[in-house]
């Protein structure tokens, strides 16, 4: 007889326990009376506080009716009188089960929030028992993250109204449920030892058997049994210590648009405030100055309540930043502004700045960050991502010192588990078990509270937290605030490991490339804003008004769009459209500030050599999609340009060969094949720079799975897709300065037009793309196999550079198959090398002698149209002597990314600042000084003599000393304040 697998159909004791815990949950509601006077008026939010209504007037809403629409906001209203049987009850609640997010006003006052994680709120007493409920509900829509299983059955853009009720709690059932749920979690979580789990299994089973679920009796007896048998059983002792910090992660945009975050934030704050009144032990940590700003603007009453709770220490503003920015892609000045505007806001509204940077969800952190933190008053850095999301290596520390590019150190806390927990025993145990710095003497940090779209701590979590100290098998629990935990834990006496360099996240590598338009515009606008501010400051010194308000507004809009689900591209379509509209406005505002006229002006703090691009709609050159012309001539630092007359003499020789077109510029001999790739590049001395496929366009199948927009898999090279040459290389134009050759490559759906541009007298070649991109799940890369042997490549980080190894020796190098860089990457050996300088690309792969620049992706989640459409971009391939520093690659990259502006100003007498780049010249935030921010870019140390003593400042523009000699170290950021008189005398004479 064949073996028949027996499927068990009977219930195990622990399953019976779980069923009865669910029954207890249902028993928590005591009295219940339906409110039947609900009306609803539906609409759609169109701005922070504007709506377009679908319904002209409210309509009745009855249990079983459908309500809410996709992206819909529903306004519910009901007037009701508390039934007589509720009078005299200690506490009456409104119960409304929904998957939406609701902000509830009761009798005109914001009273609480209802969302997928909570379905009741405690009602304030009302005269005569009369209640007016006014609810603003937003259709919650984060599909991949339903942590609360009760909400799953309710979800959908169009929901079924479950009714609204006056209810009371059956306190005995509720208290027993919270006990039982805690022990059920221990029983099922698998984090506790076998003996203790067996004890809990047995005692919980027996406790629940003391209850009669029909008559609802035996509840007190069951609680007493659990107290005696489990809470008071001290034979099982936990080790270690865990600090619990309440927090709610709030994505400003993601599966929702930015204006929805206004309500999400208000609801989150309101819920926490309400809980604080009922649970004084609750201390809650909330981040992002922008969110506080919106609360202040749109919910001033709530904001004042927050301020009161900040004074009592229960509500803790944290993080220091304007928004929780991505920390790979933004330039250094953007990161500085995050802290400048963030800290100034916190200080102005709450009396003090933050001491921690709180970024639980950010996709890796640049090595430039520690210095910016340190000089912005931030001592502690918190991020959960590396410990919980790395796909290859286990990040080796949780409590450590993080050392940045310049050597600055901050205390770093990378909690071992996710930033969203319910403070359940298993989560706490897992946190402690995973904690790798147990011997440091620092307790591990466990955040609790629902998040991503806000929500925060629930009553159930508070009930759990209250009980944790009585569970002997747990580590010692400390309920605290974020700042208190960090200050008390990270002290100089602790021996901590040092992590030197970037905090690379071994995941989400696609976010360096997804939504290329956002990246390109972010780069362009960072530099445009720099120039608009610089020229405005110079004009101010010459008597004009400084447009402080306009510049600050433009910066803040840019900063908001650097949020870690906006600039990285991990969002739905409308978020992209909002960002692009913002970018268009910033561009127009900056253009208005710069003004239309004047001479071509070099805004860089060094003389440009070679060519500079001047945008001009009437220009003859089409450069990366923009009309203009390349100018050559005298282009001193911070000065008008004196163009040289165009040359007409011959400088370029071409020769058709079997292998391709040989182009000889006098500086380079480049053999260009029909698809625009380079079979050979030799300098005047005959040094060959190519070894393999070079400047080759490649397409790879790119299907990373659920995290489509976020990830590129290490196996992406497995399937290469064909590209055909639709139009082989041919000359397009040539004059005395530049020569352009053009070819077209195509797939069935997409066309790449590549313009190979040579510049007279230059050792670089530009590849300029116009792309009609119609692929699905394809990654486009430009690859360069260099005749260079180097153990590492240098990657620009915007304010310094970082070496990245070219080998795949260990898991650490293998995991870094795609990394973030800014304007350039360079692979050099002693004597020479190759650099690739881009104008808006960030992802690059580096292996052996190959640089692989990511150009475009075509993901379909969360945005089905991500990146499809037209693209223009370019890069230079630079063939140079010496290393990147000697070859001036960084300056070239700044030139490539910064077009000439038009300006009426005369020349500035700018000194030679060597490797110090003038990152920012602006009016101080108090309007009294000129701020001069210099960043060392080459990894040198030195001194810059000033003609007078200047005040040294922190990045938040606080006093840090006085000097007439700016001494700087490698990659240091120096900020000084000059009086307008000093600056005028120094810069204009």
């Amino acid at each position, binding site marked *: 007889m064949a073996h028949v697998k027996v499927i068990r159909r009977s219930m195990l004791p622990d399953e019976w326990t779980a069923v009865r815990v669910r029954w207890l949950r249902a028993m928590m509601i005591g009295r219940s009376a339906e409110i039947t006077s609900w009306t609803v008026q539906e609409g759609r939010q169109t701005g922070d506080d504007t709506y377009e209504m679908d319904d002209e007037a409210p309509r009745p809403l009855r249990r079983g009716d*459908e309500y809410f629409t996709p992206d819909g906001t529903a306004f519910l209203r009901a007037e009701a009188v508390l039934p007589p049987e509720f009078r005299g009850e200690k506490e009456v609640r409104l119960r409304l089960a929904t998957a939406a997010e609701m902000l509830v006003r009761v009798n005109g006052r914001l009273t609480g929030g209802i969302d997928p994680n909570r379905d009741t709120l405690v009602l304030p007493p009302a005269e005569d028992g009369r209640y007016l409920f006014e609810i603003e509900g937003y259709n919650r829509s984060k599909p991949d993250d339903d942590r609360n299983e009760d909400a799953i059955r309710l979800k959908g853009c169009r929901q079924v109204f479950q009714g609204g009720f006056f209810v009371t709690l059956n306190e005995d059932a509720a208290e027993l449920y919270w006990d039982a749920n805690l022990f059920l979690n221990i029983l099922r979580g698998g984090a506790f030892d076998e003996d203790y789990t067996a004890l809990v299994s047995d005692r919980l089973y027996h406790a629940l058997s003391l209850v009669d679920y029909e008559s609802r009796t035996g509840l007190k007896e069951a609680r007493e049994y659990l107290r005696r048998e489990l809470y008071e059983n001290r034979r099982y002792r936990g080790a270690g210590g865990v600090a619990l910090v309440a927090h709610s992660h709030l994505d400003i945009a993601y599966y929702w648009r930015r204006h929805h975050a206004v309500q999400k934030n208000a609801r989150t704050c309101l819920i926490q405030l309400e809980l604080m009144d009922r649970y004084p032990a609750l201390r809650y940590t909330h981040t992002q100055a922008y969110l506080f700003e919106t609360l202040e603007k749109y919910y001033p009453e709530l904001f004042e309540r927050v301020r009161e709770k900040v004074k009592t220490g229960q509500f803790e503003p944290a993080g220091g930043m304007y928004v929780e920015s991505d920390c790979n892609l933004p330039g250094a000045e953007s990161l500085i502004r995050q802290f400048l505007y963030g800290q100034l806001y916190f200080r102005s509204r709450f009396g003090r700045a933050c001491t921690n940077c709180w970024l639980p969800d950010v996709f890796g952190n640049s090595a430039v960050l520690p210095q910016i933190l340190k000089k912005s008053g931030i001592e502690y850095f918190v991020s959960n991502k590396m410990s919980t999301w790395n796909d290859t290596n286990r990040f080796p520390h949780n409590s450590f010192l993080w050392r940045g590019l310049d050597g600055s150190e901050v205390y770093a806390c990378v909690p071992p588990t996710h930033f969203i927990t319910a403070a359940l025993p298993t989560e706490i145990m897992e946190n402690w078990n995973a904690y790798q710095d147990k011997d440091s003497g620092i307790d591990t940090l466990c955040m609790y509270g629902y998040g991503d779209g806000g929500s925060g701590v629930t009553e159930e979590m508070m009930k759990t937290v209250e009980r944790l100290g009585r569970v002997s098998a747990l580590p010692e629990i400390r309920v605290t605030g974020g700042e208190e935990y960090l200050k008390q834990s990270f002290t100089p006496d602790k021996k901590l490991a040092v992590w030197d360099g970037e905090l690379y996240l071994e995941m989400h590598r696609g976010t360096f490339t997804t939504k290329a338009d956002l990246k390109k515009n972010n780069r362009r606008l960072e530099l445009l804003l720099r120039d608009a501010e610089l020229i405005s400051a110079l004009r101010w010194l010459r008597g004009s008004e400084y447009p402080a308000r306009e510049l600050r507004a433009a910066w803040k809009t840019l900063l908001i769009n650097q949020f870690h689900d906006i600039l990285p591209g991990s969002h739905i379509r409308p978020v992209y459209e909002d960002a692009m509209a913002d970018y268009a406005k910033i561009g127009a505002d900056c253009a208005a500030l710069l003004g239309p006229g004047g001479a071509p002006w070099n805004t860089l703090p060094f003389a440009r050599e070679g060519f500079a691009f001047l945008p001009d709609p009437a220009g003859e050159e089409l450069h990366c999609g923009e009309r203009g012309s390349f100018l050559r001539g005298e282009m001193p630092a911070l000065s008008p340009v004196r163009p040289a007359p165009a040359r007409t003499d011959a400088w370029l020789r071409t020769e058709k060969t079997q292998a391709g077109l040989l182009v000889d510029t006098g500086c380079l001999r480049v053999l260009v094949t029909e698809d625009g790739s380079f079979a050979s590049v030799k300098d005047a001395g005959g040094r060959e720079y190519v070894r393999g496929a070079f400047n080759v366009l490649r397409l790879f199948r790119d299907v990373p799975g659920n995290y489509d927009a976020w990830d590129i898999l290490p196996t992406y090279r497995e399937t290469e897709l064909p590209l055909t040459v639709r139009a082989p290389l041919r000359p397009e134009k040539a004059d005395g300065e530049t020569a352009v050759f053009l070819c077209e490559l195509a797939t069935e759906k997409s066309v790449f037009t590549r313009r190979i541009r040579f510049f007279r007298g230059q050792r670089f070649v530009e590849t300029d793309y116009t792309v009609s991109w119609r692929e699905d799940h394809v990654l486009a890369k430009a690859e360069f196999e260099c005749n260079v042997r180097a153990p590492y490549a240098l990657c620009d980080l915007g304010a310094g550079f970082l070496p990245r190894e070219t080998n795949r020796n260990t898991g650490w190098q293998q995991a870094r198959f795609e990394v973030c860089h800014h304007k350039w990457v360079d692979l050099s050996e002693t004597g020479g090398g190759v650099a690739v300088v881009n104008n808006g690309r960030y992802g690059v792969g580096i292996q052996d002698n190959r640089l692989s620049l990511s150009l475009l992706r075509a993901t379909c989640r969360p945005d089905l149209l991500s990146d499809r459409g037209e693209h223009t971009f370019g890069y230079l391939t630079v063939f140079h002597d010496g290393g990147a520093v000697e070859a001036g690659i960084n300056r070239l990259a700044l030139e490539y990314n910064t077009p000439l502006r038009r300006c009426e100003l005369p020349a500035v007498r700018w000194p030679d600042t060597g490797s110090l780049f003038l990152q920012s010249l602006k009016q101080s935030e108090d309007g009294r000084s000129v701020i001069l921010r210099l960043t060392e870019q080459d990894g040198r140390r030195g001194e810059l003599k000033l003609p007078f003593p200047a005040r040294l400042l922190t990045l938040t523009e606080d006093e840090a000393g006085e000097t007439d000699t700016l001494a700087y170290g490698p990659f240091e950021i120096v900020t000084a304040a000059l009086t307008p008189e000093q600056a005028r005398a120094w810069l204009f004479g």
Partner: protein
Amino acid sequence: MTRWEEYLRERVAPRVRADGGWLDYDGEEGRTLRLTAKGECARCAALDRCLKWVADGAEKRTGVRPELSVTREPFLWRK
């Protein structure tokens, strides 16, 4: 562009996209309106309720109630 198509493109699609979903107009024949559900709509258990809302809206706008014929595109897939 037919009135149903206009309604789909201008009223329905932007709202559905703002919830991570996607409904494409695929054509119509008589009273049958063909749609493709993509993105989150492709795997939504409550899609029928939204489709009823689409049909209600189309009827309100045009006076004719469409019969919807909906294809769900596999999630994470583009044809």
